[in-house]
């Protein structure tokens, strides 16, 4: 869930609690996504000057990301950035979220590689939805990336597209943790069952 998401409005709380689905509140904006073992996350964390001529505001950053992914999906499935989603045609396969501070910004995407239809039943239809969604239910609105491109090709092409903008080095994730010397307290957190239940009661 995004930073301001209200669980009772976005989730079917009863099945979420019954099935013990962890609910995480991000520090970034944006909507709610179901994350499973197939989800591919791509995150850009940039200093304000990292991308020349890019103003650190949501729409320019979103456009920039759309141009980058256009290189990845060239000729595949009628890709474009539609309002703030990545779509093939009018079916969404990637949700975006950002956080912008004085000197840097983060833009991250969770790509819907594959999904279990049952997991979509945890999500309510959001009150705030893009116009192109046209009140479609989840299954009519989203699509699976794996139907369009092999996983390794997507990853390779994304790395290649990033290399046209930045110089790249590879790290293992364990190496990244040991690089940081600053004390870090994440604001992204797991919501407790009590918080989820309380939100339902508050809504009533």
């Amino acid at each position, binding site marked *: 869930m995004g930073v*301001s998401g209200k669980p009772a409005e976005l989730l079917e709380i009863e099945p979420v609690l019954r099935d013990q689905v962890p609910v995480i509140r991000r520090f970034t904006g944006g909507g709610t996504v179901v994350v499973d073992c197939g989800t591919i996350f791509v995150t850009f964390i940039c200093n304000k000057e990292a991308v020349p001529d890019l103003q650190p505001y949501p729409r320019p950053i979103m456009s920039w990301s759309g141009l980058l992914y256009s290189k990845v999906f060239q000729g595949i499935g009628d890709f474009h950035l539609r309002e703030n989603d990545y779509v093939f045609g009018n079916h969404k396969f990637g949700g975006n979220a950002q956080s*912008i501070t004085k000197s840097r910004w983060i833009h991250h995407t969770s790509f819907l590689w594959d999904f279990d239809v049952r997991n979509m039943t945890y999500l309510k239809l959001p009150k705030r939805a893009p116009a192109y969604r046209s009140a479609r239910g989840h299954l009519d609105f989203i699509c699976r990336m794996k139907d369009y491109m092999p996983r390794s090709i997507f990853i390779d092409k994304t790395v290649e597209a990033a290399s046209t903008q930045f110089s790249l080095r590879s790290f293992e994730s364990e190496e990244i943790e040991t690089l940081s010397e600053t004390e870090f307290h994440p604001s992204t957190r797991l919501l407790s069952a009590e918080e989820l239940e309380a939100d339902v009661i508050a809504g009533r």
Partner: protein
Amino acid sequence: MALRMWASSTANALKISCASKAHLSPAFSLSRCFSTVLDGLKYADSHEWVKHEGSVATIGITDHAQDHLGEVVFVELPEAGGSVSKGKGFGAVESVKATSDVNSPISGEVVEVNSKLTETPGLINSSPYEDGWMIKVKPSSPSELESLMGPKEYTKFCEEEDAAH
């Protein structure tokens, strides 16, 4: 290249709406600026404004900022009684998938917070300098106000920033 073309076509579209804004209320010529800048306020380079009246300073984000952010859907504000520091974040606004930090132009104690923004965050878009105010602060170092930009300087700053991108 594509970004420049996008930016200039957006700028051209805004110029049309800016021309009509120019007849409303601003203190300065808007010949090349696309947003309203008010007289009597001081401005930070992170696009917040301060209005100093006696022992209290009111703070919000500028018309330029709200226009670039898009529709504000959620506002995160500090508690009254807390403190703010010049140049540091005190809250955030959420718009279009993004949460953006809001920084305080001055240091001091928060004496009041605009609770209307909880129910109606869109006030920041519709009335960034009035009903969309965010916090009121008792300044701890009034001299900090002197290092902020005046309206003319801020207008030029916005023009240069938009032209550079």
